[in-house]
């Protein structure tokens, strides 16, 4: 079933956020692997911000992604 436009936008924005701040690997991944990695990274982000850890892109997680913030990643070394 095609994903509605707004949902695609949200997912793309979330992927951009996670690749910038949580080292979500860039580039093409297999469909199943892609969703596993995204879920893991979402969980990592939710745990960092003390949100409910679901691995899903819920409204609260997406709202946190939209907050103004520092450009330095939350995990790993910035070098």
């Amino acid at each position, binding site marked *: 079933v095609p994903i509605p436009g707004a949902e695609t936008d949200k997912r793309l924005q979330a992927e951009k956020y996670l690749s910038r701040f949580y080292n979500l690997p860039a580039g093409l991944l297999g469909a199943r692997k892609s969703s596993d990695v995204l879920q893991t990274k979402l969980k990592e982000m939710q745990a960092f911000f003390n949100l*409910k850890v679901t691995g899903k892109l819920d409204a609260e997680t997406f709202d946190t992604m939209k907050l*103004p913030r520092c450009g330095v990643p939350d995990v790993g070394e910035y070098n």
Partner: protein
Amino acid sequence: VSPRKLKWPNNNLTFRIENFTPDMKKADVERAIRQAFNVWASVTPLTFKRLHSGIADIMISFAARDHGDFNSFDGPNGLLAHAYAPGKGIGGDTHFDEDENWTKESNDYNLFLVATHEFGHALGLEHSREAGSLMFPTYSYSPGFPLSEDDIDGIQELYGPNPNRKVKPKPDAPKKCDPMLSFDAITELRGETILFKDRFYWRIHPQMPEPELTLIRSTWPALPKEVDAAYENSDKDMVVIFSGIKMWALSGYDMVEGYPKYIHKLGLPKKVREIDAAVHIPETGKTLLFTDEQYWSYDERTSTMDVGFPRAIELDFPGIGKEVDAAVYDSGTLYFFHDYMRFEYSYRSRKVISIVRANSILNC
């Protein structure tokens, strides 16, 4: 700190401001940057000397979009700034997004606060998970000394303490499942529940799975940093917040003009200097105001204090003790909070129905 504990090998660091933002006066930018370095110098042995030419350890610049480091900015809001961990070359360098509106006030983005956060990275700190700490990755405004205990622990792990000066860090954020947790004030706000504790408030929203902790000042910069009591008058769509002898009003999340007002305008005697708890009962149109071991009844319809008050809390609400910290009303039940206890009190049958931990309201 980073896993490899990146830090500068010496304590005498240099910085240079390469350019200025047009949003602020040059002198104000210089002051914000200098004050930001002073914050870290006050808790470590580090010193910061400004250079006007050549290469400094920490090079500071304002730039928009792509600015030559493969970490481009994104226009207004979103990314505000970034800084590189200690090291040669770009290490320590700090870049601010010129597309933001930089200020020295609480509106938009306060340069001093963002600079202090970024210099934390330039000195070797990573992001903190603790809401309310300076190194938390999302921006929130808060006046006064910006470092929390968590920030100070981090920087002193790398450089040690300042041998000469002592500063008072901000208190840590309250832990919602601390069994001894008490509340300063609780109110409903258009179907949400707001629980005030120290400089913070929790927001419980029916559609949010977890309570959200935020600094009071980051949502309402005009409110005092801590509050004593609050109640919602849903008929007037207004939340009244008390701190000391003053009160403020909210309509939704917006401050109502014409406040703060003195609590004595409600008809309280001058000897009352603080309200401990407040609760509105829609069925009667009365607002109960609790101070020490007594309470008053204010009639919202006539805007007058009812006669025959104050009365002793212990006599009229048997079983809840002599004092209360916070109170809320819901469908015939009053919920009183005192220390780490919550008393569920039936307003109709005039007795305590159950007693649970105060933080059970936070799903603990």
